């Protein structure tokens, strides 16, 4: 049967295997299998684990209330901490082998970049529930990929606007971002916006330590010596915890204003280590002390139940997870209505989710035609308050997404250069006074 015979057999087999993909499923399935990728290991697990808890809690309540017209949601969780290539193999296995119809992925912008084209390939609806790199949806039109939260542009432009409102006369700025897609892209947009609105600002240092880099001491020494007026870091999770802890140990916040757009997710963990006067954000308007929604029934109930279960207040990945699941449920409901009551195909749901409005726990989100969600941004300044072991975000300001997001079809790095200073005085921006600590 030598080598030649083998090669002949192989050529024959090639024809048999290239069959077409699965036929269109019409009838209502027993359950809706969805895959959720989150960080269960590594520095980002401080993010991923609460996100998973939020999903479990929301799905449990949702299924109890009857699910999508009787169809319960069956989640499977994948660990983004295993690295891009392992995640990809598991992602494919879930879709190809276990017939998962919807994937909520991912947290890391790097993983979103990897997964989007594969989702399109596998024809599975992929909701980007927490990653924010704008490049994914701006570089290519996807049919099966949507994002139910804001992107880097929405957040960075809002952060620059808030910084210029609170500290209009600063001269020098330094940046210490994580060295991967999010760190690099967010700085590019922040810098272009800043140069458009305040061209005379001088960037004194640009540092990108390794993602998961455990020790910032050398970077902090350099920042202490340079004494820039403003220090920006879009780090998050374990990395942000280490940076803030070491910065406060060495009094960095006394000499420069820290701008930490993702600080809300670390406040409770860091507690008193967070100095006052830090400009902070929450990638959206996700704050359990949200001035407009702190007493909203749905929001209060969820926060109370989440706190009972996890002993911690919900942080913004929790809100983003709820938003993604709400969007999924409302997407299916609308698609079923449009499909005269019959169970919709993945394509129909993906289409319906493009131009719909839905509400998570705070302000409603409007989904655009390119699959990008418009999510208003809220920022504040940290202040220690009695009765709460960690600081609150004071002087809250909400900046609508319509002002800070690149229109459909435009590339953000170029669009942000056209941002005008008049934007700062837009009447749509709402500002609130002091934030009172929670009642209980």
């Amino acid at each position, binding site marked *: 049967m030598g080598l030649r015979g083998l090669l002949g057999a192989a050529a024959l087999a090639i024809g048999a295997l290239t069959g077409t993909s699965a036929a269109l499923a019409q009838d209502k399935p027993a359950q809706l299998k969805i895959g959720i990728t989150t960080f269960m290991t590594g520095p980002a697990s401080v993010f991923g684990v609460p996100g998973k808890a939020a999903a479990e809690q929301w799905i449990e309540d949702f299924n109890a209330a009857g699910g999508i017209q009787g169809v319960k949601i069956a989640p499977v969780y994948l660990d983004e901490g295993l690295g891009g290539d392992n995640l990809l193999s598991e992602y494919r296995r879930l879709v190809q082998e276990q017939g998962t119809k919807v994937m909520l992925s991912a947290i890391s912008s790097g993983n979103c970049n990897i997964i989007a084209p594969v989702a399109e390939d596998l024809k599975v609806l992929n909701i980007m529930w927490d990653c924010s790199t704008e490049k994914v949806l701006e570089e290519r039109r996807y049919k099966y990929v949507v994002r139910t939260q804001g992107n880097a542009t929405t957040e960075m432009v809002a952060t620059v606007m808030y910084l210029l409102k609170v500290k209009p006369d600063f001269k020098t700025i330094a940046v210490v971002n994580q060295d991967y897609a999010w760190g690099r892209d967010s700085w590019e947009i922040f810098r272009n916006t800043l140069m458009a609105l305040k061209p005379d600002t001088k960037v004194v240092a640009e540092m990108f330590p390794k993602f998961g880099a455990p020790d910032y001491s050398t970077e902090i020494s*350099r920042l202490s010596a340079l004494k820039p007026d403003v220090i920006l870091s879009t780090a998050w999770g374990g990395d942000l915890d280490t940076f803030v802890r070491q910065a406060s140990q*060495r009094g960095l916040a006394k000499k420069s204003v820290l701008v930490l757009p993702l600080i809300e997710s670390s406040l409770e963990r860091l507690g008193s280590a967070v100095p006052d006067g830090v400009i902070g954000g929450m990638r959206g308007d996700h704050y359990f002390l949200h001035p407009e929604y702190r007493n909203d029934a749905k929001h209060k109930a969820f926060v109370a139940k989440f706190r009972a279960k996890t002993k911690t207040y919900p942080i913004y990945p929790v809100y983003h997870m709820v938003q993604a699941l709400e969007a999924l449920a409302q997407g299916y409901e609308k698609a079923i209505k449009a499909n005269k009551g019959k169970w919709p195909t993945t394509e129909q749901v993906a289409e319906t989710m493009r131009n719909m409005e839905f509400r998570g726990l705070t302000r409603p989100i409007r989904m655009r035609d390119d699959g990008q969600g418009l999510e208003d941004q809220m920022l504040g300044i940290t202040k220690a308050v009695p009765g709460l072991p960690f600081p609150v975000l004071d002087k809250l300001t909400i900046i609508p997404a319509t002002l800070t997001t690149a229109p459909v079809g435009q590339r953000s790095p170029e669009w942000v250069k056209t941002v005008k200073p008049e934007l700062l005085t837009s009447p749509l921006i709402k500002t609130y006074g002091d934030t009172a600590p929670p009642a209980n």
Partner: protein
Amino acid sequence: MTVDLLLLALADGVSYAGLLFLVALGLTLIFGVMGIVNVAHGAFFAFGGYTAATFVVALSGPDTPAIVLLLALAAAAILVGLVMGTALEAGLLRRVQDKDPILQLLVTFAAFMIFEDLQRLIWGASPRSAAAVVDSLGTLELFDVTYTRYQILLVPAIAIVAYFSLRAFLRRTRIGKQIVAVTHSREVATALGINAKRIGWFTFVIGAMLGALGGALAAPVTSLVPGVGTDWIVLSFSVVATAGLGQITGALIAALIIGIARSIAVYTMPELEVVVPYLIMVGVLLVRPSGLFTVAQARRI
């Protein structure tokens, strides 16, 4: 790169070199006696760090004196060194002593994989830190930059103390001399009646303790996450290879070179910070294959 920036870079560099040296010292000591590069050395670092973090978190109250926390770090290092060192040496390496050195190296690689998962099973995946130690020691000003006493004074001091006490131990005590004898030639030492097995175990535990001490001292300044051991293995390799395997003084100098070069890179070319240790390692190995401080032995036929 003004002069005071250079001095700042030196301060950070020396502190980082302290950690690097302690971990590399354990690795090079074990190589000297056992003749193998212990790939599982990073696991000693990781377990040392995690144990230290657990002890410090358990002990640290609002007014716990610094000395108690420091003793907790030392206790963690000694405990981890003893338990893991013995488990690896007596449990595994003794069984493969006569096997091909490639297989001995791989046994330590297998042990590393086991410890990696064991660590996640015990401590989970969320980051741990022992920051309380740093807070308890306060800060000091250097060229009007605030440094923590822990990082600028304590870590380098412990590294220097470890260096001199180990050198004195090897030169003046009985067991120390036996270790040196076994390092030079296990056969001759055994022929002279030295219990090479006991010396091998003893040195391995000392090496493990040093690796664990590196981890324990790193816990207060970093957040420990799964995979921290993996980076430190390769970093300690870069120090040991640059110095020359088995060279203790060489390891101190190599750690200083790499630590300071890395710190200067943060000030001048931050992009290259991560690459610097390996660039130095490649540079040195290309010029002096057996490291800066080892004399190449001629082959005998």
